[in-house]
């Protein structure tokens, strides 16, 4: 396993801080409300220690404040939290990596870049840019080319890329379940089930696609981690990290979000009972349903298939 560097740990705390602000906003916390550590650690699927580190980052930004009697409260109205949380990890390498990644996923920067061009764009030192690129390269998002340039690898930034990702996962994920040695951590299943059920309790129109993506990637990463095949495990985990960082799919209707999470729960049930063949089949169904996408190009006057274009 790759050793976790200090900058990676710090980067994870920044990510967690952002995740906490998302949860705070989604669950309707108001200014002055206590933010329960236990609830947040459960919702984020981490222990309380990193939650405390994330609180410190948010405290620096005045988003939360420490209570005299212990714990943290929300220090701002929710509208301000939304605006300020965008700048949470500012001026850090982790933040720079996120900004580069986000700009690439939103097609602001090109496929190949030099460190100096990025350093000009972000008004950052060459060493900060280089460190940011190294963080991204550990997730396979950029590769250093011979010479000084860095090239971005394919991302999940367009509907076609998402289609290809699903086709790739359809080949591997059921096999990851069926490979000899598949083992599940039932405690993790419990946490995942609880997070999913909590999300499902939200009313229509309040199902955030960002939170769905977190839950979805966590579920599929769990499947990968549990696989007995080391290569399937590695490749799928890297792919889920790529999805989490770059997939910006906001086109899923509430019904399908719920249906998709119900499918996760069904697969978890089968895994707990060690009915692996059934779970693998359910995974095929789940991914195939996710493959059905809206037509991209339709219009009045576009002739039925086979009749050609209107004269």
């Amino acid at each position, binding site marked *: 396993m790759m050793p976790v560097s200090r900058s990676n740990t710090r980067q994870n705390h920044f990510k967690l801080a952002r995740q906490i602000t998302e949860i705070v906003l989604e669950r309707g916390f108001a200014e002055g409300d206590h933010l329960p550590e236990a609830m947040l650690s459960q919702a984020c699927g981490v222990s309380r220690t990193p939650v405390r580190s994330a609180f410190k980052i948010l405290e620096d930004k005045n988003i939360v404040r420490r209570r005299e009697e212990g714990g943290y409260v929300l220090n701002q109205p929710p509208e301000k939290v939304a605006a300020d949380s965008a700048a949470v990890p500012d001026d850090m390498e982790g933040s720079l990596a996120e900004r580069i990644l986000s700009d690439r996923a939103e097609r602001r920067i090109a496929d190949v870049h030099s460190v100096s061009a990025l350093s000009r764009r972000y008004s950052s030192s060459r060493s900060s840019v280089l460190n940011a690129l190294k963080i991204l390269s550990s997730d396979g998002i950029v590769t250093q080319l011979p010479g000084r340039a860095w090239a971005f690898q394919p991302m999940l930034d367009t509907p076609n890329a998402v289609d290809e990702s699903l086709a790739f996962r359809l080949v591997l994920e059921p096999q990851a379940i069926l490979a000899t040695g598949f083992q599940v951590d039932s405690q993790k299943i419990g946490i995942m089930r609880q997070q999913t059920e909590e999300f499902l309790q939200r009313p229509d129109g309040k199902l955030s696609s960002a939170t769905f993506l977190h839950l979805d990637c966590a579920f599929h990463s769990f499947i990968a981690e549990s696989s007995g095949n080391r290569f399937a495990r590695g490749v799928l985990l890297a792919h889920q990290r790529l999805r989490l960082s770059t997939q910006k799919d906001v086109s899923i209707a509430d019904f399908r979000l719920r249906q998709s999470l119900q499918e996760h729960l069904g697969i978890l049930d089968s895994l707990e009972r060690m009915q692996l063949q059934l779970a693998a089949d359910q995974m095929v169904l789940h991914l195939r349903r996710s493959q*059905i996408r809206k037509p991209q190009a*339709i219009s009045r006057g576009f002739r039925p298939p086979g009749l050609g274009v209107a004269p």
Partner: protein
Amino acid sequence: MSKPVIALFPEASFGSALNCVGIAQQLLREGAVPVFLCHPGFNGVFAEYGFREYQLPATAAPGPQTDETWQDFVTAHVAHFNQDPTAQLSTYVAPTWEAIVDTAMQAEEGLERLLKRIKPAGIVLDNVIMFPAIANAGMPWVRVVSCTETEIPDENVPPYLSGMAADDPARPEFEAAYLAATQAAHRRYNAFRRDCGLSALPQGQFLEASPRLNLLLAPSAIRHSRRTPLPAERFVFLEGCVRKEAQFDPPPLPVNEGPLIYVSFGSLGAIDTDLISRMLRTFAQYPARFFVNVGAFLESYSKVPDNVFLGSWFPQPSIVSQADLFVHHGGNNSFCEAMFFGVPSLIMPYCWDGHDNATRAEQTGTGAHMHRDDWSPQELAGRMTALLADDVMLTRLRQISVRMQATPGTQQAARSILKVL
């Protein structure tokens, strides 16, 4: 008593499809079982909202819609979208009606079989043409006019697809040109109707009014005062028809300041990537955040400005509700959604009823009309600034929004449908 099954059959365009989704969501809440009849290539759209779909079998040569065939369509028509409504009659409207007639003829056999199989209590047709299988099915059918109100003619209503005012002196010429342009398709369609046992329709008309119920997506704010009022027991006007959609949280942009402007020309409008690229260059210099729907063409763009976010699809009701200005092509659903949420429209029409809505937005003070292609960056920026600063329009739109939200069209539609079935 078992719940009534209601078959909704929208045209293969997102406007009518999503309009019907809004009605179906409400029918479900009212205790009915809405199902969808969908055109080949359109499956999955309604299932994603939780509705059962029945796909019309493709009876012509097989094969899904491909990038190549769509590209042919683009190549054939993109230049026509710069023409005025009269010039478009021969270049776009006439071939489009030919294609619509083909669609109806192709669907007939499969539709008849499907209706026999489903046996719905009623059919909701949101289209611009009658499918004889529906009229012959022996069950009540409801017509939905999700295009602009001009689809139902009247002397006080501007001619359909003209972009004119009702009293435009050039009206007779346009009406004559429309009939001439659609004559061949109309003759072919009437022959088809006769073969199916239906009577011929008057020149220029491809769909009759339902004897039971007709629903018009025409909020009171933009409705025309007709010379011959439509009988209220059969014609119900809807105050918007907005579906429940996923929540959209606008992501922070590298330059994240200023009003939020949403831009969408529909899946058809997204084909003109050169035009949208030119708009992006103007947006880059404008102090606002732009969210731009580029449909199937996301991969055609690079170097996206720091105050712009491109998407291939947005849950439109959610983002329009958060927008300060909506730049669109004048599709009736988009125009009505803008009013439903009290947002001014800058309408840059491509074709069809976009022209009618652009004129109507100007007439009713709910938005502005601008040529889709013939503008300088300064003109486009000036129009956006004027709309964002028009407090009188904003106040009017807020009142319209309150009225529309108080009487949601989806509820009006669903209850009216259930009453006549």
